[in-house]
């Protein structure tokens, strides 16, 4: 696998949190030839490079490919949701919870206009001079910058003040694990590379759809050979789908709401932590104490991520609806895990399984994403945010994630787990952090949050305001380096 790293954009392996200055350029192709020429020679940072002080990553939308003159039949080889786009169907917007204040009709970008290309620039210091090196005259002839999204360094915390990005799936770079064995009846964090990169086997042991080209096509011979069809060249290999959402966070609204529900600062903190499902420090509510494949062996890894919710079915330690519990319920393929094949058969056929509740959220391994977001706006402490005269820090998160199957990974997590008011056994509540609070068609509320208590009577917050609003977004393809050069129509490398 390491031999492929030079063909993979670096974002797959790292979030480059040490490159604290970053911006995103959303651009439109204005001159096809110039744009192609720039893309052919753009200094893309690859996963093979170790420590870097600057970063450039490039991703394209389906429209962007068309603007570059990529044949329609090639674009049609990408996944339907990529072609349709994040705001391309009302049905999709309903599923993603992009309704009400988060509806695409209110977005700054991604609905009325969709960018062709996304450039991500980052640097340890001196972002502006790196930007000057990247945005050359040729760049200026080829592209028009429609939007430049700035970021802020909040030292690993998101704007509400929680340490972010604590849990990530571990891609199985070395192919150490065979997916689908009985080990998967229990939760694991080591995930097949094909869940994040096209052209590799995924958690089903299969290859995700992507354009496979006839090597006789001009330039296609320089693309990698398709693993599952050696007679074809793989335009998807070493590429990934990049989901980008601009999320505005109402920091004052969040902490004021929490403060209203609590008697003390300490209680406010605990309540906010219950809503998120982690401590401000990033520590879990359920102390990690055992080894989980793909979590890492260091004490710190085990403490932060060596846990599941199996011992807290009632949600008394970590509420069932807590943000991180929804985003990754840490379930195996079968409730109860490994119990031998007779039990497996019995549970599969479902003859003697009286408890209806324990099987609603299964098989997390098919629904994982690599998160690569960055914050923007001013940072503000919770004490400041609670003050009545606090000014709006206008902050939020540029949510970025990478996955190979947008509908089964990002969209599933967003729809079935986060936004759903019927997640697990719940009713009447959506995600306490990112929920849109829009009632169901039948009028049932989604703006409550329940904290199960030891005596059985859940504490229920009601009338929660919306804390996070979507202001833009798009689905991009983050190609492998060779694929990018192919899309740019570069002449064959000598």
């Amino acid at each position: 696998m390491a031999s492929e790293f030079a063909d993979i954009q670096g974002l797959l392996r790292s979030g480059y949190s040490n490159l604290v200055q970053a911006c995103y350029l959303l651009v439109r192709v204005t001159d096809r030839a110039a744009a192609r020429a720039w893309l052919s020679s753009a200094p893309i940072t690859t996963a093979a490079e170790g420590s870097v002080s600057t970063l450039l990553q490039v991703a394209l939308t389906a429209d962007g490919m068309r603007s570059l003159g990529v044949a329609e039949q090639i674009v049609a080889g990408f996944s339907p949701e990529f072609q349709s786009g994040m705001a391309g169907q009302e049905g999709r917007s309903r599923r993603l919870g992009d309704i009400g204040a988060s509806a695409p009709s209110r977005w700054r970008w991604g609905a009325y206009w969709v960018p062709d290309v996304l450039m991500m620039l980052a640097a340890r210091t001196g972002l502006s001079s790196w930007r000057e090196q990247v945005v050359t005259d040729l760049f200026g002839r080829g592209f028009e910058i429609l939007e430049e999204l700035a970021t802020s360094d909040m030292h690993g915390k998101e704007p509400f003040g929680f340490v972010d990005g604590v849990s990530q799936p571990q891609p199985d770079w070395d192919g150490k694990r065979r997916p689908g064995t009985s080990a998967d009846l229990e939760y694991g964090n080591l995930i097949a590379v094909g869940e994040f990169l096209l052209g590799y086997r995924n958690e089903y042991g299969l290859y995700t759809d992507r354009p496979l080209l006839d090597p006789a096509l001009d330039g296609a011979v320089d693309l990698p050979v398709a693993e599952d069809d050696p007679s074809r060249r793989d335009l998807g290999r070493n590429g990934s789908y990049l989901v980008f959402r601009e999320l505005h966070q109402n920091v004052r609204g969040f902490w004021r709401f929490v403060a209203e529900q609590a008697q003390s600062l300490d209680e406010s903190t605990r309540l906010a932590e219950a809503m998120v499902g982690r401590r401000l420090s990033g520590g879990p509510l359920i102390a990690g104490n055992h080894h989980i494949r793909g979590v890492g062996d260091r004490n710190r890894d085990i403490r932060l991520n060596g846990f599941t919710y199996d011992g807290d079915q009632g949600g008394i330690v970590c509420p069932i609806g807590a943000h991180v519990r929804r985003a990754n319920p840490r379930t195996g393929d079968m409730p109860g895990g490994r119990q031998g094949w007779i039990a497996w058969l019995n549970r599969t056929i479902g003859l003697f399984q009286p408890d209806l509740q324990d099987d609603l959220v299964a098989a997390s391994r098919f629904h994982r994403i690599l998160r690569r977001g960055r914050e923007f706006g001013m940072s503000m402490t919770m004490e400041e945010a609670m003050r009545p005269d606090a000014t709006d820090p206008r902050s939020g998160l540029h949510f970025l994630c990478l996955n190979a199957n947008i509908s089964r990974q990002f969209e599933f997590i967003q729809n079935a787990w986060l936004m759903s008011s019927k997640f697990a056994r719940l009713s009447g509540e959506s995600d306490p952090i990112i929920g849109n609070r829009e009632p169901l068609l039948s009028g049932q509320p989604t703006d409550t949050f329940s904290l199960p208590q030891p005596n059985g009577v859940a504490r229920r917050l009601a009338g929660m305001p919306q804390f996070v609003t979507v202001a833009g977004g798009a689905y991009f393809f983050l190609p492998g380096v060779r694929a990018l050069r192919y899309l740019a129509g570069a002449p064959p490398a000598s």
Partner: protein
Amino acid sequence: MTPQSNFMIAAPIVAEREDALRSLLETMNLRPGVVDQQNALLPFARFEQIHVARFVILKDETLDDRSPEDPLPNAPVRLAFLGDCDGDTEALLAHFVAQAADGLRQIFSHCEGFSADIDLLRWMRQHSLKPATQYVNWIGRTVLQIREEAALHAALRSYLARHPAAFDGQRPSRIRDWLITVHQVNGPTLTPPARTPLRWRVRQLLNLICVPVALLLLSPSLLIYAPVFLSILRRRETTDPVITPTPSPAHVDALSLIEDHDVSNQFSALGSVKPGRFRRWTLVFIFWILNFSTHHIYTRGRLARVNTIHFARWVFTDDKRRLFFGSNYDGSLDTYMDDFINKVAFGVNLVFTNGIGFPRTKFLLCGGAKNELPYKRYLRRHQLPTQVWYKAYPGLTTTDLARNTMIREGLEGRMTDAQAQRWLALI
């Protein structure tokens, strides 16, 4: 206990009136995918025994998948009106005629052989199709019960919300006693279940005995036939064509437009059965077994590991040469398909492997739906837009219904603190 039954009325549409029918059916919606429960043609809400119902135009876009040796020359586009209800179908049809004859006549007048002076009830009976297999999430749970139990859940939740502090440090059994008292004073009505019809009980019992006995009697011949069956099966499984192209974006957009307006969705699909008697009789046998399982085993909230289906059915059309599948499920289509792939692929395979173009299976059970993307494309491509869809209890999932029933049952009897704690947590 009131058992559920189902109806499906299907008749060919007069070719040149199809567009007019589509426009007419659209008037029953507030907007695409959202039914007007009080619409003038068939005000669903007035029929309190209906759980779910739909009008769907069965226009098979996959007829070209059939091989030239197996044509289906007379494959009409049909209008289907189907639904699931409490009690007897006959009573419901009579109720339709009494309450909505004009609207139904207007709709069915787009079908072949329907005229203004026709006896509506007789015509509907004549055009009824029985399912090969049907599935009811919870046999005996009526619409009335669902509504009353939802009201009970809401009431109990609001009692608790009004006195949050009063429960701190209280024993769960004491809190439960208090809740029960409050409920008895001013809780919502809970109608006791009706008596189970004797005819239904006898039929169930006969079915419960006869199917295993028949299987037992058949088993020697089945055993002898098994090697032959398996060799034919394997030969076909390795040579039958797989047809899973990407459905057109326009088709997907049309389906997406009417989906995910509520927590539940409908699914309608039509496809061809593979040619020849082998597949046909294999299917008939499988449906016979499946029907037994949905009548006697999967009757309380779950179909094997899948607990998101309210009602579903398979129906043969065209002399068992085509198959209709209709379902009412919770969540979005992607989650529904994932559930099937990850939990009951074997069950999906048993049936659909006998459909033209389905991804390759092994021994009927393995493979097939496990081919994630081809399977998802196959389903989406065979799916038909449902013109009108009604569900009597929007906003409620099967999990909600099961939980509400547990809450109601928990009003009775004595409980330990541990039991009371679990019961309170349901609220």
